[in-house]
C-alpha cells in the first residue's frame, strides 16, 4: 500500500489536522516509511496463531450498574471556551 498526496490530504482532513499543501509530500512519505516498516511484519507466518490482545492474561474489567459518578457540571464545563446556561456553546451546526 502506498500513500499518495490525495490520500494524505484526505487523512489530514478526516483527522481535522491542518497540513499546508507544501508539507503534504513529506507527510505522505512519512506514512509510506511507517507502512513499509509495518509491512515487514507480514513476512512472519501467523497461520493458526490466536491474536494476542493483552500482554497480561486479564479479563475485561466490569462495573456494577450503580451510579457512582457525575453531578459536577461546573467541573465538566470548567475548560469550555464558551458555556451558556449550563450548555457548551459551539458554532452553529445544523443540517
Amino acid at each position, binding site marked *: 500500500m502506498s500513500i499518495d498526496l490525495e490520500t494524505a490530504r484526505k487523512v489530514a482532513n478526516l483527522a481535522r489536522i491542518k497540513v499546508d499543501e507544501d508539507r503534504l509530500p513529506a507527510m505522505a512519505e512519512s506514512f509510506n516509511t511507517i507502512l513499509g516498516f509495518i509491512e515487514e511484519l507480514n513476512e512472519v507466518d501467523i497461520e493458526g496463531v490466536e491474536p494476542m490482545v493483552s500482554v497480561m492474561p486479564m479479563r*475485561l474489567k466490569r462495573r456494577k450498574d450503580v451510579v457512582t459518578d457525575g453531578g459536577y457540571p461546573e467541573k465538566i464545563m470548567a475548560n469550555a471556551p464558551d458555556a451558556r446556561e449550563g*450548555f457548551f456553546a459551539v458554532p452553529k451546526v445544523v443540517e
Partner: protein
Amino acid sequence: MLDAPTTKTPAPKVISGAREDWELVIGMEVHAQVASNAKLFSGASTKFGAEPNSNVAFVDAAMPGMLPVINEFCVEQAVRTGLGMKAKINLFSAFDRKNYFYPDLPQGYQISQLYHPIVGEGEVTVDLAPGVARIVRVERIHLEQDAGKSIHDMDPNMSFVDLNRTGVALMEIVSRPDIRSPEEAAAFMAKIRQILRYLGTCDGNMQEGSMRADVNISVCRPGDYERFREADDFKHLGTRCEIKNMNSMRFIQAAIDVEARRQIAILEDGGEITQETRLYDPDKNETRSMRSKEEAHDYRYFPCPDLLPLVIEQGWVDDIAATLPELPDEKKARFINDFGLSEYDAGVLTADKTSAAYFEQVADGRDGKLAANWVINELFGRLKKEDQTITTSPVSPDQLGGIITLISKGDISGKIAKDLFEIVWNEGGDPAEIVEVRGMKQVTDTGAIEAAVDAVIAANPAQVEKAKANPKLVGFFVGQVMKATGGKANPKAVNEIVSAKLGL
C-alpha cells in the same frame, strides 16, 4: 405443544411510477437505549431530563487519561435481547472505535462493535393482520455509546451541547433488508419495542428518544428481490439511501414513501441513485441529503485499545436464558390455544405485558372468550375514553372477574353487567355484594317472569295477533317484559315463556 399458527407472507408494496412498477426494499437499524441506571462505560446516571451536563463523568467528557470500564448489566441486557430474538450469542465480542467529529461526541469517536458484535443472527416475526406476518431476519445486535444532544434553537448563532446522554448504552438492532412496505417498517419497530418491553431491556419510550431508527431504503423491479434472496447477492437490489434518526412510527412510514418516490423519479428519468445519508423533514414531507455526513462516512474503525475483548461464559448466557419471560409470540399462541381466543383478540391482549397479566387474572377459572370480550370492549374502551391506562384502571382484575362470574352463573344479564361495571368503575366495591344489596339479581323465578309475561300479553292484544302471524315480532314482548322487570329478568327464560304463552 402449541400449534404454530399458519401465516401468509404479505405482498410487497408496489409503487407505480410514470413508466413501470417498483417494489420497496427496506432494512432498519433500531437504536434502543438499555434500561440501565449508569452509562455503558462510566458511573454517571442515565436519568432523563436532568439539568444539562449534570449526568456527566470525566470519562463521558473525554478528559485526558480517563478509561472506560464496562457496565456488566448492559452486557446482560444485550444478551437478553439477543435471546429474545432467538439470536446467536457470541461469547467473544470486542469494541471498536468509530471515528468522526461532532460537537456532541467529545471523544472524537464512538465506541461500538463493528467486527465482533455480541449478538449474531436472529429473527423477528412481524404480525401485520390476523394470519399475515413477515419474518424479518436480524443480522446482528451490538452495544455502543450514545452521543450527546445538540440544541439548535436557543441561540441564532450557536448550538448548545448537553452531554447527559453521551455514553449511555445503546443496543443497535440491525435487520436484513427483509421489510417490504412502510407499514411493515412501522410494524417491525412496534414489534421490536414490544419484545424489548417484555424483556425489560429498554423502556421503548420513543418521545424521550429511548428508541430511534435509521431506515435504509432502495427500490427494485418486481422479481429482483426474489433473485436477491436466492443468491444473497446485493447486485440484484437498487442503491440504498439511509434516513437517519427517526423516532416516530408515523414519520417512518411517511419518510419511506416519499424517499421511494424520489428514487423512482430519478431512475425513471434515467438517473442514478447516489448512496447517501438523508434526513426527513416532516414539515415539508421530503428527505434531503446530509452533506456533512458524506466525507465523515470514512469512519476508520479500529479496535479500541482501551478495552479488552468481552468474553462471556455459556453458563452465564444459560442463566440469563432461564430468566426470560414468556415472549409475545408464545403468549399469543397460548392465549389462542388455552382460552380459545381469536388471533386478533390474543394480539390485542398481549400487546403489552401488563394488559396480558390483567387479562389472565380476569380469565383465571372463568370463560376466556367472555373475559377477553369484557377486557377488550368494556375495559379498554372505557380506559381509552377516560385517557387512562391499564395500570391506573379503577376496576381491578378481581372486580372485573367478579362481574364475569355473575354473568356466567346467570345471576345478572349482560345488560345489567354493563350497569354493574359502571357502578364498580365509579364507586368501587365487590360486584357480588353490589348485586345483592341493590337487588340487581336476574329474576330466574319462572313464576315471577310468567306473571310479567301475562301482564304484557294482556295489555297488548293487537300485538299478540300480529305476533301469531309473524313470530319474529316476539321480540316486542321480550322487550316489554325486560322493561317491566327493570332488565332483571333472564332474557333466555323470558324468550321461552313468551313463545310458549303465544303458542309459537
